[in-house]
């Protein structure tokens, strides 16, 4: 097998490898800025310099030539090589900054050049704390600058597009953003303008950077040049708390991280999953942070007279719900599950009404034909359409929902804005007692007689099945009134969560929503009406499902966590307009 010698260690490799990627895969480090594993390699930042050479082989005998000490002779390449674009070959010798002073010096000098016109405004820069330029300057850079002349000034606060703001002075012209627009989103909206020390990325004068994937350039920008207009100056990254989750704004189920501070989701970034979204996600999914914070249903509410909703206690909500159930036969109920909620929520919800004697809950997919592209935006507007099919909810179209409402006395809707998305009208619900279990205020909750606030994806652990049949799960990222980060081992703790107290003025106890997971609310309701229904955690629901539903056999939260989601052996169902 071909062999390569990196920092005096021997490694074997098979196939085509670039030196940098190979070194990174070994868990070692070489600093770099412009290289990105999912894009082309221009080698233009010059940061990943290594010293490279080749052992000399005698062409006739095939033996390595030895020097007087019996060591193999090395023919060094005449110059330093950029390891990102250096293809490994048999007998190659590479010395990184770890073993070669020359490589170390080359990297240091490159950094000094890159920093000549960089403003060094880290204290006010959003990228600080997660900035490759900052980190690598600490590790490999010069102690100071020898540049004593005035720095070149370039445009600041440029609105490149509706979501991206450019600070051209910070740019090191790695062209990652330009290559992203060329190769990944293929809108070709960016280029590098001007030249020399005056260049920076820009759109054509008649265009704006309205790429539906534009915010990915903010993630891959190795400095603070491209910043998210929404997130600019909102929080320092080291004060936030990062929790893995799933994008719920469409059917693709992009893997994401939720960044919270004081129990507010401040930004959403993609999490690498080669099977689903690689390193990317659509901008729309990032804008969902607002729906986790704002316009939430907090505390149950009940309609007192015609159109007047008023908050009420949980006890009263349970009591009212129970009285309604006791006053009606199961066949007078119209029970609607939803592709907008997780598998666990739908399963527990459906099972509860099954136990009461109602038939399976109905649901209607939320599809906008032609809305998607062939990349990460889908026609399907809901994250869990296949999950509803998996647990055998009754799939129906809009008219199916309408006729179910017409023939019912009580309508119970799980977390689906059926009025807002045009399936029902508020008038359809007017003469029926309508109960909504909802995360956010919507036209449906407004038309409801009883509204039960439930946790959203940012507040519970639950799984979702995407359009390709992959099951992936979320973690609780923000506390509700009834959860506590320090007691719930599933929640991650940021620096402020760990060291802040209620008495510190930089810690805020607000932003906690008064809501419960669906299953917990149904526990209370079941207890009140004497139903044998008890789930302490979504994990218990999932365990029961994996026992009972064939495609879920052998699948657990642990497997989903380890394997970044699990592909289910279900038939790929084309999600179509019902």
């Amino acid at each position, binding site marked *: 097998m071909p062999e390569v010698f990196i920092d005096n260690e021997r490694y074997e490799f098979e196939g085509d490898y670039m030196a940098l990627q190979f070194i990174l895969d070994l868990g070692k480090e070489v600093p770099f800025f412009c290289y990105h594993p999912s894009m082309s390699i221009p080698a233009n930042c010059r940061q990943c310099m290594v010293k490279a050479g080749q052992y000399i082989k005698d062409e006739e005998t095939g033996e390595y030539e030895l020097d007087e000490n019996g060591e193999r002779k090395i023919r060094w390449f005449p110059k330093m090589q950029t390891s990102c674009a250096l293809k490994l070959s048999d007998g190659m010798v590479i010395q990184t900054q770890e073993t070669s002073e020359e490589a170390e010096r080359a990297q240091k000098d490159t950094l000094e050049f890159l920093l000549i016109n960089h403003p060094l405004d880290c204290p006010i820069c959003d990228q600080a704390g997660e900035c490759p330029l900052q980190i690598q300057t600490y590790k490999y850079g010069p102690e100071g600058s020898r540049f004593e002349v005035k720095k070149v000034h370039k445009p600041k606060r440029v609105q490149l597009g509706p979501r991206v703001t450019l600070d051209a002075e910070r740019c090191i012209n790695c062209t990652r953003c330009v290559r992203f*627009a060329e190769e990944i989103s293929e809108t070709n909206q*960016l*280029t590098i303008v001007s030249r020399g020390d005056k260049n920076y990325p*820009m759109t*054509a*004068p008649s265009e704006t950077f309205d790429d539906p994937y534009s915010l990915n350039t903010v993630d891959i920008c190795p400095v603070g040049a491209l910043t998210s207009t929404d997130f600019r100056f909102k929080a320092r990254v080291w004060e936030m708390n990062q929790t893995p989750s799933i994008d719920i704004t469409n059917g693709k189920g992009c893997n994401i991280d939720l960044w919270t501070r004081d129990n507010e989701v401040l930004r959403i970034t993609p999490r690498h999953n080669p099977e689903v979204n690689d390193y990317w996600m659509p901008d729309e999914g990032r804008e969902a942070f607002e729906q986790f914070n704002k316009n939430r249903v907090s505390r149950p509410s009940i309609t007192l007279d015609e159109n007047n909703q008023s908050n009420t206690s949980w006890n009263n909500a349970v009591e009212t719900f129970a009285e309604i159930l006791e006053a009606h036969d199961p066949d007078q109920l119209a029970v609607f599950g939803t592709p907008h909620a997780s598998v666990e929520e739908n399963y527990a919800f459906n099972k509860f009404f099954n136990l009461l004697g109602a038939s399976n809950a109905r649901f209607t997919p939320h599809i906008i034909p032609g809305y998607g592209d062939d990349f990460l935006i889908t026609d399907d507007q809901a994250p869990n359409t296949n999950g509803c099919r998996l647990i055998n909810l009754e799939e129906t179209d809009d008219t199916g929902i309408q006729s179910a409402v017409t023939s019912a006395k009580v309508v119970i809707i799980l977390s689906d804005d059926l009025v807002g998305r045009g399936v029902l009208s508020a008038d359809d619900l007017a003469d029926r007692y309508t109960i909504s279990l909802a995360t956010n205020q919507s036209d449906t909750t407004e038309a409801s007689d009883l509204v039960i606030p439930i946790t959203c994806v940012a507040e519970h652990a639950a799984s979702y099945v995407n359009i390709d049949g992959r099951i992936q799960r979320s973690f609780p990222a923000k506390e509700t009134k009834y959860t506590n980060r320090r007691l719930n081992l599933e929640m991650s703790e940021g620096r402020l969560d760990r060291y802040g107290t209620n008495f510190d003025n930089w810690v805020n106890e607000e932003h906690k929503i008064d809501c419960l997971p669906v299953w917990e609310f149904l526990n209370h309701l079941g207890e009140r009406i004497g139903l044998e229904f008890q789930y302490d955690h979504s994990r218990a629901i999932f365990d029961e499902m994996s026992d009972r539903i064939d495609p879920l056999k052998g699948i657990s939260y642990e497997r989903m966590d380890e394997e970044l989601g699990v592909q289910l052996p279900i038939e790929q169902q084309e999600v179509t307009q019902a």
Partner: protein
Amino acid sequence: MTEQELAFTQDELDEIERIKAKFPTNKAATLRVLWVAQEKYGHVKPEVQNLVADTLDLPRSHVHGVASFYTQYYKEETGTYVLDVCTCLSCQVCGGYDILHHLEDELGIKAGETTEDGMFTIQEVECLGACGYAPMLQVTNGVYANNLTKEKVDKLIENLRKGKKPEFESMVMRQNEKRKKELSQ
């Protein structure tokens, strides 16, 4: 000028086709086609860049990047004659700034500006590779005027006003003059 009014004539489109045929991709023809456009309009302002991009079926951003890279493409309207005065090292040592300031005084404008009659634009540029004949200037991306003196500059301006462009002159470095004489004999 609005974008609708901008268009290449059939002759120009034919020429662009000939240029495209010389290169493996349309992208590679960007420089030459921008040149065609600049000859036609005298500048490549953003709307002209867009015309080039749309004609070549290339991203507008790409053409913009190329046009902004090269100082020889004029991104603004210029005078009939653009005087690129070199003030890089060799010219500077030999009096490049004297020439530039003399020109500025003569025409009543600063480097980077255009005279009111739209006749002249002065630009201060970096090395044009004629260090042996410093100080020098270039007229509208074309001929060089070499070994400049104030008198020579005055004469040049006078001629240009009459519409007479300087002729191309074959230059020899001073240390080679003797050899040139020998060769010509």
